[in-house]
């Protein structure tokens, strides 16, 4: 393969490789996907670590995320500024966690953060209601959504404090082996 690319220095690539679950090729491919979102904004040369961000609107329009009801939360959780404007590091981080190679605990941790809309380290009822809205397109009535959220908390809340902490959530994940499907990134290698 050789070092024919001029986008990153060798050390940068090594660092990326060691910190994400991607290989060198995949990192380069992802970089090009990132750049394609805003080619005039992102330089082709990252050796001097330019500080550029792609605004959220462009990130949210990626085909992998476009239809995802949680795309905004995902972008917020992974972005440095918390608003969804992502640097390359954030972008790589996001896809690394969402890829199928990331272990379940890591995904569970980030999933927790994504569902935690008010970022208070707990999934409280209001967070659940928002999640429900995003998933069901607001078509459940108020009563129904309240009922569902109450039941969820009943089922999953172990320490009885009325909301789901990270431990409660992880406990639930352990019992849900399908959870590893939390990865929209399966198709990214196809599209790249």
């Amino acid at each position, binding site marked *: 393969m050789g070092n024919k690319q001029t986008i990153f220095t060798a050390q940068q690539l090594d*660092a*990326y490789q*060691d*910190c*994400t679950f991607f*290989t*060198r*090729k995949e990192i380069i491919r992802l970089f090009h996907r990132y750049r394609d979102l805003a080619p005039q904004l992102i330089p082709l040369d990252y050796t001097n670590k330019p500080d550029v961000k792609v605004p959220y609107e462009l990130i949210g329009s990626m*085909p992998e995320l476009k*239809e*995802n009801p949680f795309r905004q939360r995902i972008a*917020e*959780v992974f972005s*440095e*500024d918390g608003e969804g404007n992502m640097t390359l*590091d954030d972008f*790589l981080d996001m896809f*690394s966690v*969402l890829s199928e190679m990331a272990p379940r605990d*890591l995904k569970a*941790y980030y999933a927790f*953060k994504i569902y935690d*809309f008010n970022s208070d*380290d*707990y999934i409280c*009822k*209001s967070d*659940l209601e928002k999640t*429900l*809205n995003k*998933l*069901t*397109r*607001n078509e*459940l009535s108020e009563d129904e959504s309240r*009922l*569902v959220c109450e*039941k*969820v908390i009943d*089922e*999953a809340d*172990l320490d*009885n*404090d*009325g909301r789901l*902490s*990270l431990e409660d959530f992880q406990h*639930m*994940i352990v*019992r*849900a*082996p*399908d959870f590893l*499907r939390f*990865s*929209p990134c*399966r*198709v990214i*290698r*196809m599209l790249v």
Partner: protein
Amino acid sequence: MSHYNREGLFNPAYHDSGTLEIDRSSSRKSDHYNPYDRDTEPWQRGVADWAPPEALPPYNEQGRYPWDSREENWRPTDNMAMDLLPQQNDSLRWQHNHGSVNYGYQTDSAVDYITAPQEQQAPWTPHMGETLRQRGTRKMSLFPGGGVALGRLGMTEEDVRDEIESGEQDLVKELFAMSSRDQIQAIRVLQMSLQNKRDIRRQVLACKSSKRGLKLTCLTDCTDQVSRSFRRFGANLVSVRQAMTLWRGTMKEIGGKFGTGVLSYFVFLKWLLMFNIFSFLVNFGFITVPQLVQLPNITDQMDFKGLELLTGAGYFNQTVLYYGGYSNETIGTQPTYDMQLAYFFTIAAYLVLCGFSLIYSMARSFQKNFVLSASGNAWCLLCSWDFSVTNEKAIRQRKNNLRIQLKESLSEKSQGDHMTMSEKFKQFGIHLGTWLISTGLAVASCTAIYFLCLDYLEAINNSESQDFSSLLKQASTLLLPFVVSLINLVIPLLYSLLNKIEKYSNPRTQIYVIILSVIGTKCLPSLGVPEFDIARNVLDLIYAQTLAWIGIYFSPLLPALQMIKLFITFYLKKVSLYQNCQPPRRSGRAAQMQTIFIALLFFPSFVGAMSMVAYTVWSLKPSKDCGPFQGLSTTFEAVALWMERLNIQNLPESMWAVWIYNNMIKSELFFYLISLIILVLIYFFWQVTQGRKLLISILREQIINEGKDKAFLLGKLQKLQKAKQTTASSQPAYTQMPQSYDRIQEIEPDYEQSLPSMPRTAEATGPNGPPITSALIQAMLARRQAEEDEEEGY
């Protein structure tokens, strides 16, 4: 630790302001957010100063906030270390715009110990600002339970930073102690942002290089390079191997468009294909190849007519495709290869290996997917969303389905409570009726086939006397398979009709129930675009594989046929899926379905096939005229004869085989003993699982108790904070949790009283301080107290 302290605070506010102490105290006084102060409204707590509503996050796309808007207001403050808060930055920006100086206290206020203002490049604080910014807004995994609202405890930001730094150093030490591959893996799974990980990695590498700095740097450089290039090579190999996996791309596409339920069917198909490939290779290698080397003498050769391709009989009868094409001679002179034994042992070994592999997969899959399985709304809501689906229509479907599922489960609950006796009876009656009908149908079709078979054999035997052309005879052998296939087509349709009468709410139960009646299928009532019926297709696969396993004794190369068939099926199904079907309505529990498929494959299918083959081998007389077991009374006799021969030869190295045969295989006592031992082991493990279940329930209780402890401690802390607040306001100096620690001991443990103070409906009553990791708090308080005692001591 020191370089984070008093100098180089990472925001201009402190630099610009006067003395730090005064600023801090005044700012703290006015804007310190006291989460425990339930009496004051959020905006009175100084929130409004720096979190105007317009700075709140923009996800009000639905425009719907049924919950308290007040909550929105104070939300920015009510977060702990884990922030990446849009509101934070907005408020920062807002303050920036207003030229406010009060930027700095945000770090030492209750909210977060890392409000790294991301926009600014912090040119004035090169080192610390950078590291703190890199540390960013992600929670470090060192602080479980939601970071620590150390600020709430009134700790300074320096202490906070001390904590972070010491935590980081511990992490670096831990990583340094691991091997390089473990290090990389550990760094990858850290729960931090990429920048933080890079930082940690750099520190670890720096540690490493400093440690090795004493040794030859050139050599270590070389070894570094070599190990790195090895790692790269390994990664390349992995990607190459992945690229060569069969159908990988197609499966991903299917999973993306149709979800994981449908994907599980294709995965199952691929798995079956692997089985057949293995069996084909084994059979071909051990049986067919030696036979091809020395073809047996076949009397009465038949010519090839086109019909053979359809019936599979005739000309093929005498080729190696069939049992009859194998001889019972020993091939070769020295060493000899006994065809009889080879045939028997190859088939036996393959079936046994198949059995083991099925049991192993089943057990592993069961363990992964079934034990302590979750179900219900929580799972539905939080875990079942299939993020791998990217198709817009599919996603809309899923949303609809989820909504329907939730509604149904809600109505189920309410319905289950309100069903009257008569309704229950009616439902029971319907179930019973349809069961009877479906069983009747199955029995009827079985007897029909049986009698047809009998009649048919008779007819064939009779017709031998007449002068039927062989072509017609061969064509008539097709009649039976034709009838069977017809029945296979018609009966499932009848079953699906029956299904519409019955109504089971849980589709999984439906699947299982109908599978129990052997030929049934389930067809979701849909008009228009059909859905991919996973159950029916899987059953077809299992049926075909059963036939293959039954037939393998009689036609060793049958797996080849099966392989071709599976290959074609894959592409056919894929095309049909893409052209015709829509994604399934219910988000299936793919992992559990996988387990069920394997279990079905094992239990009725494999065990059934194996028993039939075993029966054939043990009891039936093999055919006299052809095949490898000509002239023996049962197939197994071949082994018996071989053992006798070995016995007679009396070679020392083969006596162990004879001994095993005589004492283990032939003796019944041995089997009794084995069964007894296995039963004892089963009982033992069963008791162990019972014990573990008990343990789980005890641990659950313990977790609930811990929650109560948390609540209790929180209540105490609230009281302390209140007290401290009143005393702190009168002191300009910066005080932390001073005498508060003594107060803790003074306050009587008032368990029951403080319990209700930890509300179950925390979010409804408004902002309460979220609980904090009790152990951590105690530790911090103790340390703080110890430091203060020291200071006071001077």
